[in-house]
């Protein structure tokens, strides 16, 4: 049934496209996979979120190419002095896409859509809560159910969010994809038709591009939305060519079959850099790869031992071999692209002799430990096994005998969170660009068994600052606290911070104004292409 509907809409649009084809600008993005669906709140993978993003807006959004939060569907917002309420003034005259799946909106975007979108994720009795499986991972992971006390409609263009406690990062949370605003009217339209599941497959939004058609594993098509509130996009047709193999993506770039691609093969980077037709853009990724030292397992409870391990590991070699140069040595938990990065912190130098001295001073003559490596490739760690082997060799030089260990990914994570390991590799990719989104990883809340702080380190002065920074609304005040926290974390060394990987994106020279997103997003509004 759904196929026939897609077909009907495809037929309709194809005639429209054919009519306006002459001189139309088309940009093809070689994406890496098929989306699970088109409702961002349901998804967690970059592939799915990228696929839905052209269609939608949030109340506030990340400025393209940065982590700054700027107004979007809310043209202004105000945080009350006690930090407990945020009032959003909504933009007037914002249109929803018309003609997708037979839906024609009868009204502009308003507060009802905002309430609908958040309540779907929040309230079990919402008519769409269970539709499409209803796992709203990000909403829950960002702790929204505990943060939110209420969301109210003050009038059509005003929404008031009341929080249970002051929380500065919440605005950055709302700029994330789960904060996407969908059409309450379209939802009702489909519910009346008895086809609510189509809501997540054939999306209607307020975004710069309107959904045209999707063929699983082949292509997603969008066209510029004429009535977009921010002005019509410069590209008329946006096409995602689903191309799972990285080498094939590059071959397509070379043949001019696509103009932008994500996730290049590290082995191809050198050739891409020399390719005349391409700009190889790069940026430090919003991530960190680290080795956690479990302070609950002696002798890792001793600061000196942890510092010694920091000095014993040759991270320069790891960068060269494991990251193949596509990474930046990390001295802090947050990458330098996040505000409040403390550049004054002095990195541990590679010094096996000093490490031995420190170990001796701590009374550790011989030490055997396990070291866990992840069984999967992650953005912050392209080859955990190789990294673990190199660390094993480095640590042997200072008299530490290391046994390597690994489990299936789900099991691995669970056991690390339970604190079964002595040393373990893991990492993090930032969600919203707020420092809190990184530092909670070594806070006391996560240090409990099963928590995400896998070094199980809990330092009261660090924790106090972490909690305090969340409640302040002035960015400068918060930054000061985070800078101090980085000094503590460096001195106490619960982790060996290894690297922030670099994100590369080859872009055709025909394309202008493309910006790499620190979040690893692929965004095309504002991008232009030469015909």
């Amino acid at each position: 049934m759904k196929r026939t509907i897609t077909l009907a809409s495809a037929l309709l649009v194809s005639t429209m496209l054919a009519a306006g084809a002459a001189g139309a600008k088309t940009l093809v993005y070689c994406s890496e996979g098929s989306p699970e669906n088109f409702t961002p709140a349901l998804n967690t993978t970059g592939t799915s979120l990228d696929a839905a993003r052209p269609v939608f807006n949030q109340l506030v959004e990340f400025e393209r190419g940065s982590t700054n939060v700027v107004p979007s569907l809310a043209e202004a917002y105000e945080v009350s002095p006690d930090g407990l309420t945020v009032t959003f003034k909504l933009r007037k005259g914002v249109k929803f896409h018309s003609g997708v799946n037979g839906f024609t909106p009868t009204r502009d975007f308003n507060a009802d859509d905002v309430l609908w979108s958040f309540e779907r994720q929040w309230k079990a009795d919402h008519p769409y809560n269970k539709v499409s499986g209803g796992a709203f991972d990000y909403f829950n992971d960002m702790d929204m159910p505990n943060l939110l006390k209420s969301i109210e409609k003050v009038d059509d263009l005003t929404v008031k969010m009341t929080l249970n406690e002051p929380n500065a990062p919440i605005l950055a949370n709302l700029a994330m994809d789960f904060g996407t605003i969908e059409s309450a009217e379209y939802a009702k339209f489909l519910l009346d038709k008895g086809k609510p599941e189509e809501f997540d497959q054939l999306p209607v939004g307020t975004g710069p591009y309107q959904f045209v058609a999707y063929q699983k594993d082949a292509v997603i098509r969008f066209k510029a939305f004429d009535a977009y509130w921010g002005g019509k996009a410069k590209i008329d047709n946006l096409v995602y060519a689903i191309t799972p193999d990285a080498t094939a993506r590059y071959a397509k770039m070379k043949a001019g079959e696509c103009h932008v691609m994500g996730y290049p093969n590290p082995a191809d980077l050198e050739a891409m850099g020399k390719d005349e037709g391409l700009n190889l853009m790069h940026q430090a990724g919003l991530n960190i790869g680290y080795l956690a030292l479990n302070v609950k397992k002696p002798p890792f409870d001793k600061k000196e031992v942890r510092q010694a391990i920091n000095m014993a590991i040759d991270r320069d070699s790891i960068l060269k071999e494991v990251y193949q140069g596509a990474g930046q040595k990390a001295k802090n938990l947050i990458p330098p692209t996040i505000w409040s990065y403390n550049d004054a912190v002095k990195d541990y130098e590679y010094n096996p002799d000093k490490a031995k001295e420190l170990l001796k001073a701590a009374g550790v003559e011989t030490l055997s430990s396990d070291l866990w490596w992840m069984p999967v490739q992650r953005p912050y760690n392209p080859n955990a096994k190789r990294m673990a082997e190199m660390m094993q060799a480095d640590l042997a030089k200072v008299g530490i005998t290391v046994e390597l260990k690994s489990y299936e990914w789900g099991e691995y994570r669970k056991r690390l969170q339970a604190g079964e390991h002595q040393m373990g590799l893991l990492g993090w990719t930032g969600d919203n660009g707020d420092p809190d989104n990184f530092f909670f990883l070594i806070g006391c809340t996560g240090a409990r068994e099963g928590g995400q702080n896998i070094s199980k380190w809990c330092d009261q002065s660090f924790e106090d600052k972490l909690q305090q920074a969340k409640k302040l609304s002035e960015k400068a005040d918060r930054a000061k606290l985070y800078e101090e926290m980085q000094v503590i974390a460096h001195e106490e060394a619960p982790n060996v911070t290894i690297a922030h990987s670099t994100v590369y994106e080859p872009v055709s020279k025909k394309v202008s104004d493309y910006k790499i997103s620190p979040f690893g997003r692929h965004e095309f509004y504002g991008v232009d292409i030469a015909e």
Partner: protein
Amino acid sequence: MFRFLLRRLALTVPTFLALMFVTFMMIRMVPGDPIEVRRGERGISPERLAELRHEMGLDQPIWKQFVDYVWGLAHGDFGVSIITKNPVLQEFLTLFPATVELSVCALLFAVIIGIPAGVIAASRRGGVYDQSLMGLALTGYSMPIFWWGLILILLVSNTLGWTPVSGRVDLIKYYYPSVTGFMLIDSLLSGEKGAFADAVRHLILPTIVLGTVPLAVIARMTRSSMLEVLEEDYVRTARAKGLAPYRVIGIHALRNALIPVVTVIGLSVGSLLAGAVLTETIFSWPGVGKWLIESIGRRDYPALQGGILLISSIVIVVNLLVDLTYGLINPRIRHAR
């Protein structure tokens, strides 16, 4: 004939049941939970995990899950993909035409080139032609598909610019609806100028890559089977009667030599589908092979079970048809008990 068919059909039932059971159990033996495997660094709280497992019925004892699954199948319900929440059958049917189109083209390519090549090699046994042909066939047979595909892309598409790199249609130039799912047909239906040629161009490389192994197998099989038949008395008689060589080889020998070749063709349907997994990935071909591989990575139990079951039933049916064609080629088999 009817009894033969009936007996063969009856034999497929236990095959099918065993397959269902083995697939179901094997997927569950692979470590990794479909919910947990999708989570990032954050993981999932035990409460939430239990809740989601309950929703998907994964908290039921395994025999109960199996019984429910078989019950669903008996009612034509293949279940719903854990990832996309779409019905498995619908996903399969959306993707299957692409696989069929590619496999049929590859098989035709293999048969059209493989049989004549084998016949010629056999009729000039030991000659330069025979030796080089069989050398090539061996190379083709041992060619790693992934590597072969990438080499062809780099050479034919990137360097020579003769064919497109991947996909099924030029996305910038053409946009026509998918009516049948077969691009060769849809492009004709679209009425757009050049669309059919474009679809053909997109098929060339994947057809060659997927067809290479069966081509090699068919060529070698034809050759050895021909050699055997050419030794037979009736061939010698035909020759002695003074029949033209093409009649001896083409009619008297080839028809008899084809029986094992047809078996091989039938069996290669299975290996074609296996090869399709890699070929589809390299050429961004939206078929079931790629879909199955992704389902393994994601532990999408229903999609995997359904997909494997559907593909296997197709292989079973094709092999049944192959057995029936023996009868056409060689009437003696028809009468055998």
